[in-house]
Each structure stands twice: as structure tokens, then as C-alpha cells.
């Protein structure tokens, strides 16, 4: 490492490899690379930035600790096991081998779920000809490609804590939490490092007390692994464009609770329940049981759910009260809560995987498999693949050019199971554009045909998937009543979803202070959300005029943390101290800027967020 001051205000330093974000992909990358660096039996890999020293490898993570990520992880763990052949799940808190796996179709016990005629008919048929317990129908058989039978249940936070401890114990690399990266240092199409986020600024980013401009960290290789809504990955997408035919059209927000199950629970560790059908047919859910009577329970709200009031939290509260789940959760107690966006475009959302001086890994590189509902292990695998390529180049003394990274990293990835299975999954979800039943049939078709056949078409831009409230509630709430509710909520400065869902027949949530708590309590008791002072707002509404004319304000409705609220004059307000950085506002903004994939909401690099390591 060398350091210098290239201006009175902004410092810079030079390292060999700078990583952006510490998630499963970087965990795979650093696990593999740090072992090589610490291997005394092999020739040392010397630093070019600081001759005479070992390779200088740094990783910057936005969150205040290394275990504050979110995922509902049940995984076959092929890449993770390959990296840790002697992996003993009992050594990782909250890890358990999968013991029993069920898929439940949840019928609607409330009568408020918005089900198409065909689905209602199917529900009636099921109730008439099958023995239905707890308003749930267990699928007697599920295709092998959905199974995680030989896999593991993890808490992502605990897994990341465990891996980071292994990595840092080598002493070969450094991982810095609480250090957001603002942007990549672009030089044409090359990346020359990263710029860290300015500190000591006001909400608008203007210098204030304790101003410390973000340092420029110059690096021969920048590893971009900041997830699907990360600022650096999206900056590269904007600057370099996407490969032909690739786009990020399909998203979901996953929201979960981690709970202590009651002492008399009958659910053993290793139980996996996948569900679909409730609270809305478009919303999938899960319940995974960890050791020591801890369970993760959550839902996914997709971008193709056309409701403008796609509130994850209220739906999650109804989900846990479904009789098939409530029988296990009634006396449970909230431990943790979190939410994150999932890039469900998978391989179709794959950006340019490398260029001069940079490589992309993990979910932001399009590794998530939406057919097998698996992302953590795939992300980890891409990190391992990049590390193997990087080691190869370093040992050969070759620079990190696009050509060399294509050969050393991308070629490895193309030959791997991540790529093969990603191609099978590429069109698997297109059927959901025509409805849930078609979507499920499309998934089965893609799975059985190994991706050769599919139903439906590629989704449009997510901004174009949001319908009108009047259309969504047609037959349930008259348009003039919607207008009245809208005006009333605007006056009170609250989102629409509670009033509309109440009116549509969803019963009020019977808060019990244990599992059913207010959204703010979920933030505080579960997510322990907070943000350090001295950083700028990272959610910015670009053109207030466009916000005023929006009328849907999906950003307000879907915000996982009530950080975005209705504002005076029609432009929403943003409260940085509540934000969990899930990024759902970004892909839910229905105001697309003309001639661009961008929307009227910017999701920039920011600090803070969840402070729970159990999600």
C-alpha cells in the first residue's frame, strides 16, 4: 500500500484489490484468495501497490457489521461445502441440515385475497375433493429441481459472521464494515478503484461539521459485489450499458421475521416449508426452522404483482396468521426482522462481468437462480471462481485486463453449474406475466425441459407493471371510494395500504407484542435499525414535478421500513434513519424517465441500516 494526498481535501491510497460489499460472493472470493495468500508452502503473491509487502486486499462494506445481511437461506450449499469440505453446521449458529421439506398451497381463510376466477374454481375443487387441514394443501410431489433435501438452513448474518472470522483469521485481507463505497473511479470503460462516501455532510451532501471527503482507493482490480441495488454496480450498468438482450426487469422484495418458537413446538430443526397462494396468489412464502427453536418466516412480494399498494409488512402480518403457520407461530416471539430486494431476472439481468480493472460477482452479477429459488450458494460460487481466476493471473504476473479476466474468470463461470442452471432458469418465470397459474406451469415446463421450453414473455420494465388502484380493486372498492381514501390518507400523511386493505376485507392485525407488532417496533425490536450521523440522504426524488403527477406512489407503499412517507405537495419524504437499504423503492417507482431504464428515484450509496446479525 502507498498513500498520498492528491488534494488538500480528498486523500487517496493505492492497494492491489478493492472489494465493494461483503456478502456471500465476496465471502467466497476472500475465502479462496486469503487461503492462497496465507499459504506459506506456495510462493508469496507480492503487492504491486506496495512492493515488498504481501498483496494488499481490502473489502469495504456499507453495513455497520459483517453480519447484517438478509436472506432466507435454505441452500444445497454445493459451493460453500466445496470451500469448506469439513463444514460442521453445528459450528455455525442457526445452521441446520434440511430434514423435512414441504410445499404448501395456502387457501384463503380470510376471503380478502384477490384471486382470479380460475384460481377460485381450483380452490373450490381442492376443498371439495381433498382433506384440507388449516386451509392448506400439501403438494404430494414436487419436482427435483425445487428440492434442497441435501442442503442446509442458514442465517445469512450468522454465516457471514462465521466466514468473515475464518477469512480475517488468515491475516491476509482486511474487511472494513461501516464504510460505504460511493462510486467506482471510472476511466473510460476501465475501473481504477473506488471512492468512499463523504462523511460529515448534511442531508443534501454538502460539507458540514467534521467534513471528511471520501477517500479515493485506487486498485488494480475492483471487485464489485454490492448486490442487486448497490450503487457501484448500477453505476457500471449506466456507464457501460448491458449486454445485448440483457436487462433487469424482474424483482422481488423479501421480508422476514426471525422468531423464537414456543417451547412446545412440534417443528424440529431442519424443517422447510415453502408456500404459495396467500396472502395474495402472487406472494410466495417460507418457514425454515433453525436449531434451538428458532425459525425464519417470510414472504416475497414480486415486481409483477401489479398492485400499487404492495405493502410487504402488512402482507407479512397476514401471512404469519394463516392457520397453517399460525399453529406454529401463535406463541412465538420476534427476535429479528429484515428485508432485501432480490434481482429475479437472474442470468437475464447479467451485466458485463468484467472489464479493464474490474470484475462483478454475486447477485448483482445475475447469479441468482429463480427456478430453484437459490442465490446465496450461487453468489458464493461466483466469488470462488473469480478468486481462482485472480490467483491464476497473479501467479502468471498478468494484469487485470478485460481479456485476461474474461479468460481467467468469465470462462470458469461459463463452464460451471451456476451458468448451466442459470440458463435453464432464464425464462422460467415469464409465465407469471399472464397470471399465477400460467407462471407455475411455466416454471414446471422450464424445469422439466431443462430450459428448452417456457411460457409467457419477458417482463416489461417494472415501472410498467404497476397497475392502477381502481383496476386492482375493481369489484371490491368503487373508484369514488378509492378517491376518498386517497384524499383522507394524503391529509393524514400515511400510506394507503392499511385503509385499502381494511376496506377490501383484510381484518385488522391483532397486535400481540410478540410476533404481531407495529412496523416501527419490527424496525426497533427486530431490525435494530439506525443510521450514523453525517451522511447524505441516499434516496433522492429527482424531479418533484414527476412525483406530484405520479398518483401511485408505490415507493411509499412498498417501503419496508416506513422510511418513505407521503410528503407535502405530493413529493414523498425520506427518513434515512429508518431505511434498511432494501432498495424496493428503486424498482417500484412507476415514473420511468423518458428514453431510459432509470426512474425518478435515485438510490445512492448510503450508511447504516439493519443492526441484526440473525437475518
Amino acid at each position, binding site marked *: *500500500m502507498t*498513500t498520498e494526498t492528491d488534494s488538500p481535501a480528498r*486523500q487517496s*491510497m493505492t492497494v492491489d484489490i478493492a472489494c465493494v460489499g461483503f456478502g456471500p460472493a465476496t465471502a467466497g472470493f476472500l475465502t479462496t484468495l486469503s487461503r492462497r495468500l496465507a499459504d506459506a508452502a506456495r510462493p508469496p503473491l507480492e503487492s504491486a501497490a506496495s512492493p515488498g509487502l504481501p498483496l494488499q486486499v*481490502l473489502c469495504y462494506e456499507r453495513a*455497520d*457489521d*459483517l*453480519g*447484517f445481511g438478509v436472506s432466507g437461506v435454505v441452500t444445497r450449499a454445493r459451493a460453500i461445502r466445496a470451500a469448506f469440505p469439513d463444514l460442521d453446521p453445528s459450528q455455525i*449458529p*442457526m445452521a441446520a441440515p434440511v430434514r423435512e421439506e414441504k410445499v404448501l398451497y395456502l387457501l384463503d381463510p380470510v376471503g380478502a385475497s384477490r384471486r382470479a376466477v380460475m384460481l377460485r374454481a381450483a380452490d373450490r375443487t381442492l376443498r371439495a375433493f381433498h382433506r384440507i387441514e388449516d386451509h392448506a394443501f400439501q403438494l404430494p410431489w414436487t419436482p427435483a429441481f425445487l428440492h434442497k433435501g441435501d442442503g442446509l438452513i442458514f*442465517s445469512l448474518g*450468522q454465516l457471514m*459472521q462465521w466466514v*468473515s*472470522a475464518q477469512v*480475517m*483469521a488468515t*491475516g491476509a485481507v*482486511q*474487511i*472494513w*464494515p*461501516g*464504510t460505504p463505497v460511493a462510486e467506482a473511479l471510472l476511466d473510460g470503460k476501465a475501473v481504477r478503484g473506488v471512492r*468512499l462516501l463523504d*462523511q*460529515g455532510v448534511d442531508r443534501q451532501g454538502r460539507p458540514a461539521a*467534521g467534513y*471528511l471527503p471520501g*477517500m479515493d*482507493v485506487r486498485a488494480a482490480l475492483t471487485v464489485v459485489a454490492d448486490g442487486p441495488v448497490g450503487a457501484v454496480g448500477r453505476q457500471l450498468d449506466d456507464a457501460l450499458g448491458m449486454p445485448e438482450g440483457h436487462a433487469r426487469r424482474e424483482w422481488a422484495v423479501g421480508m422476514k421475521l426471525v422468531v423464537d418458537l414456543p417451547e412446545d413446538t412440534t417443528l424440529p430443526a431442519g424443517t422447510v416449508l415453502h408456500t404459495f397462494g396467500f396472502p395474495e396468489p402472487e406472494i410466495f412464502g417460507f418457514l425454515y426452522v433453525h436449531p*434451538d427453536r428458532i425459525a425464519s418466516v417470510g414472504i416475497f412480494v414480486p415486481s409483477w404483482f401489479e398492485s400499487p399498494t404492495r405493502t410487504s409488512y402488512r402482507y407479512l402480518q397476514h401471512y404469519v396468521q394463516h392457520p397453517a403457520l399460525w399453529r406454529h407461530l401463535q406463541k412465538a416471539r420476534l*427476535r429479528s426482522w429484515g428485508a432485501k430486494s432480490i434481482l429475479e431476472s437472474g442470468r437475464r439481468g447479467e451485466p458485463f462481468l468484467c472489464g479493464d480493472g474490474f470484475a462483478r460477482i454475486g447477485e448483482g452479477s445475475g447469479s441468482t437462480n429463480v427456478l430453484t429459488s437459490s442465490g446465496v450458494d450461487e453468489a458464493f460460487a461466483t466469488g470462488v471462481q473469480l478468486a481462482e481466476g485472480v490467483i491464476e493471473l497473479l501467479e502468471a504476473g498478468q494484469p487485470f485486463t478485460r481479456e485476461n479476466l474474461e479468460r481467467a474468470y468469465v470462462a470458469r463461470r461459463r463452464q460451471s453449474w451456476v451458468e448451466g442452471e442459470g440458463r435453464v432458469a432464464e425464462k422460467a418465470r415469464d409465465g407469471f406475466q399472464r397470471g399465477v397459474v400460467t407462471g407455475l406451469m411455466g416454471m414446471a415446463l422450464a424445469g422439466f425441459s431443462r430450459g428448452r421450453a417456457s411460457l409467457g414473455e419477458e417482463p416489461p420494465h417494472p415501472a410498467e407493471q404497476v397497475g392502477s388502484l381502481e383496476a386492482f380493486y375493481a369489484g371490491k372498492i368503487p373508484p369514488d371510494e378509492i378517491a376518498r381514501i386517497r384524499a383522507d390518507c394524503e391529509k393524514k400523511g400515511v400510506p394507503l395500504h392499511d385503509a385499502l386493505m381494511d376496506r377490501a376485507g383484510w381484518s385488522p392485525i391483532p397486535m400481540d*407484542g410478540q410476533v404481531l*407488532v*407495529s412496523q*416501527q*417496533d419490527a424496525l*426497533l*425490536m427486530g431490525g*435494530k435499525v*439506525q443510521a450514523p450521523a*453525517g451522511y447524505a440522504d441516499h434516496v433522492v426524488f429527482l424531479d418533484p414535478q414527476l412525483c406530484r403527477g405520479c398518483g401511485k406512489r408505490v415507493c411509499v407503499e412498498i417501503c419496508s421500513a416506513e422510511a418513505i412517507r407521503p410528503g407535502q405537495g405530493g413529493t414523498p419524504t425520506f*427518513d434515512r434513519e*429508518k431505511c434498511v437499504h432494501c432498495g424496493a423503492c428503486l424498482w417500484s417507482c412507476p415514473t420511468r424517465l423518458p428514453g431510459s431504464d432509470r426512474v425518478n428515484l435515485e438510490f445512492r450509496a448510503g450508511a447504516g441500516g439493519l*443492526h*441484526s*446479525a*440473525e437475518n
Partner: protein
Amino acid sequence: MSGYQIVVLGSIVPDPLQTLEPVATAQGPGLKNEAMLPHVLDPWAGHALYEAAHLAAKVPGSRVTLLALGPKAKLQQVMMAVGQKVPFELVALDGPASGFTDAHDVSAKLAEAVGKLPGLDRSRLLLFGGWESASRGAGVTLQMVGERLGIPDQFQGVDALTVQDGGALEILERVEGGKHQVSVCAGPPAVLGWATGNLPEPKNNPQVGMANMRGVMPALQKAPPAPVGTGGVKFESVAVPKVTRETRIVKDLSPDEIAREIVEWIEKD
């Protein structure tokens, strides 16, 4: 004056944001799922560390050492956050940092480690720490370390330290009634148990982090085991205050309105 040798005694505690639940373990009382909880540098020790760095920056030739007794793996994790704040050298002892460890045991290990610091010069030694701990507010460990090292000048609840011309130390201590007591001592050695001090939490500085990390990892790798127990104390029961939450987040409420709501809430019981 060739600067101070400031030794900050501080370890880690579960992140105060987490929900803590005492349980009985085979090793004695502990916290439920303690291994899973994210940890932070004890906030009281944090104030002491930042004050130490502030003083060291003003007095050339000063050196700050953070002496931490805690589980090595957790210390490692916490150092990645703390290490970006201010320059220090880490000396680590690998042992439990639970709030249930016995202060006598802990102070003995810490005093021994201070005594073994290379180049220790008592005439320059300032022993800093928090005046209490976020894991259990017994607030006696620092005093006992001072006693074991034979340092009679001890100050608790310190909010400010000023070096006078000639090297005497003027110290502002919190006393009853929301007031401060001003004391002056001739100079080191002295023990200062810090209250909050007056400094904001330093910004994360990557260069400070890089410099610190050169010493942090080796210090962790050679951290000697420091088994400390409950000192034969039997805990009949342990409890944390009952948590009752009725949370709303409201901004721009006047102090009068906040006070009125709190009074109303208290009166409900």
C-alpha cells in the same frame, strides 16, 4: 516531556441495540445466544479511547495502547470497526468478556498485562477506561487495576482532562447533583475512568484503519489465553429490565409535548 503512555482498558459488549436475555449456562450465567450477537467496543471504553487519541494527538511522543480482554474471534470483528476511528496499538487477552466475569479476576489479568507492556514507564502512564461498563455497571475493575499497579491518583466519571503548563493534569469529574468537581494532580501515573467526555465519535478513516491493522492482526494472533471466571460467586438469579415498547417515531415534537406524553405513559402503570 516525551509524551504519555496511555493504556486504555476496554473490551467488547453485545451491541446495546440487541435484545438481551440472561440464561444459565454450563459455565455460569450468560446471555442467550451470546455467540450470535453482534458486539461493539464497550461504549464507555470507547469514550476513553477517543479521549486518549485526542490527548495523544496534542502531546507529541504519546502512545495509545488498547488493552482488551475478550474472546479473540469477537475482538477481531469489533476491531475492524473500531480500528478505523483512531490510531492505537492493540494488546489482546483471549478470554470471556461476559458481564458476569469477576472483576477481581479480570483486574488481575489486566494489571499483569499492563505490567508486561514493553517499555512501560510509570512516570508517563495514564490508565484510561470507562467509569462503568455497558455489560454490567459494577464499575470497579478499573479501580482495582489501579490498586494492583499501585497508582493512588484515581478519578472517576471524568468528562475532561486538561494538561496545564508544567504538566499537571486538571480533571473534571462528575459528582452528585449534576455538577463537576475540578481536581489537579501533579501528573502521571493516574487512573481516569471516563464518563462520556465531550468528543464526538470520530469518523471512519481508512488510512487510520490500514495503519492500525498492521498491529491488530498480529496482536490477536499472539493473544495469550486469559481464563477468568465468576470468582466463586453464585448467581441466584439474573434479570434484565422488563422491556415494554409502544413505539412511535415522531419528529419535531416539542420538549413539552414529549414530557407530557412520558408523564401520561408513566401514570398508566
